[in-house]
């Protein structure tokens, strides 16, 4: 078969190229330039070499923020993935229940992020919020604006409420794509419910679950808006995750150099994890 060779079509790519240059490449280059210099504004810069990178890598503040970030991401993955699968397994497969469940599940995903933060802030207020007031009247000493443990509990609860649906919807799609023949075969073999899940459903969901874990990892690793509105990184610095700490450094303290260095280190970590996940997904793809 002779394919028509028409390289002129490549010119259609130019607008995208320009767009990507202006919204990704040029800002990234500027961040690299900032990360090696000191500035007090007015477009005046002085060369500092690798000082900011060294400072960030050795700073306890960065280690603490990274530690909090990893802990947060790990905890929400540990809760959301199993919970999402469990909910997807109990959702109806046909009838009126399907659209009802799907709509209920997608509701939290449609709410703007800072609205989620504001909602949970009001919901959890210890004196007038429904959650806060109920917990306090039950005898728990709950105050998310003053106690670090409570702040973490509320942030994690909020994230679980906001994002578990995504895992549910993906798992549900994965479950629905399994052919009935597999279930019939399992029934003939007398497989238990657990065995059906372990050897049929889980392997068949592997692809969507990798995707779900990747999406949830990325979103939670870069989380900013919701904890910013809910706790503002407080009490103290206890819920200041990487993005919140970064913004404090860049805009609060106007330390553009160290903030640029920190964002590059942050970017490299994200890039590395994405690459690992991408390869895992490609491996799954190749196997199936």
């Amino acid at each position, binding site marked *: 078969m002779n394919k028509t060779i028409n390289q002129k079509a490549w010119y259609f790519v130019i607008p995208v190229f320009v767009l990507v240059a202006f919204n990704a490449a040029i800002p990234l280059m500027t961040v690299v330039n900032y990360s090696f210099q000191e500035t007090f504004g007015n477009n*005046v810069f002085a060369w500092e070499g690798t000082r900011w990178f060294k400072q960030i890598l050795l700073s306890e503040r960065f280690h603490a923020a990274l530690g909090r970030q990893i802990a947060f991401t790990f905890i929400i993955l540990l809760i959301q993935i199993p919970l999402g699968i469990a909910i997807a397994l109990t959702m109806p497969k046909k009838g009126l229940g399907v659209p009802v469940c799907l709509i209920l599940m997608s509701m939290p995903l449609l709410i703007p992020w800072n609205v989620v933060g504001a909602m949970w802030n009001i919901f959890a207020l210890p004196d007038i919020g429904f959650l806060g007031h109920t917990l306090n009247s039950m005898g728990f000493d709950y105050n998310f604006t003053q106690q670090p443990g409570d702040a973490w509990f509320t942030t994690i609860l909020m994230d679980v409420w906001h994002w578990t649906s995504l895992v549910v919807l993906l798992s549900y799609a994965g479950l629905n794509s399994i052919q009935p023949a597999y279930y019939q075969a399992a029934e003939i073999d007398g497989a238990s419910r657990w065995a059906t899940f372990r050897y049929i459903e889980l392997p068949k969901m592997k692809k969507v679950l990798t995707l779900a874990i990747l999406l949830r990892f990325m979103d939670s690793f870069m989380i900013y808006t919701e904890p910013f509105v809910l706790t503002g990184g407080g009490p103290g610095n206890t819920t200041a995750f990487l993005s919140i700490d970064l913004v404090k450094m860049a805009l609060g303290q106007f330390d553009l150099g160290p903030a640029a260095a920190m964002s590059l*280190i942050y970017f490299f970590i994200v890039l590395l994890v994405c690459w690992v996940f991408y390869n895992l997904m490609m491996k799954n793809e190749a196997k199936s």
Partner: protein
Amino acid sequence: MMFTKLYAATWGDVGKAKEKGFFDFDLFSWMAWTWQTATFFIFIALCITVMLIWEKKDPGGSPRKGILGLDTTRGDRLFISLLGSAFIHLAWLGLVGSVLWIASIICVAYFIVVFKYV
């Protein structure tokens, strides 16, 4: 007019306003370029150009399964090399702190290993 008062980009000229019109907008002082960072980006651009020429001469990207058990092409290997180099430099800065060019030499070795075996 926008951007009429820009400031020169050296310490000696701090605070001395220069009259500039809209079309005099200086991309390079705005992006705070230095020759060091410019060299870095020219290096990246060169890498991509070399990859393009290599691909023209030997199309297909020479896919293979390397020692990591990954299916990689030339582009993947470049990506692994560059990202790895970033981490090698960061690790060197964090653990050793000075004489950064030794890390750069390690990176060259790392590049060669990745392009040969990964």
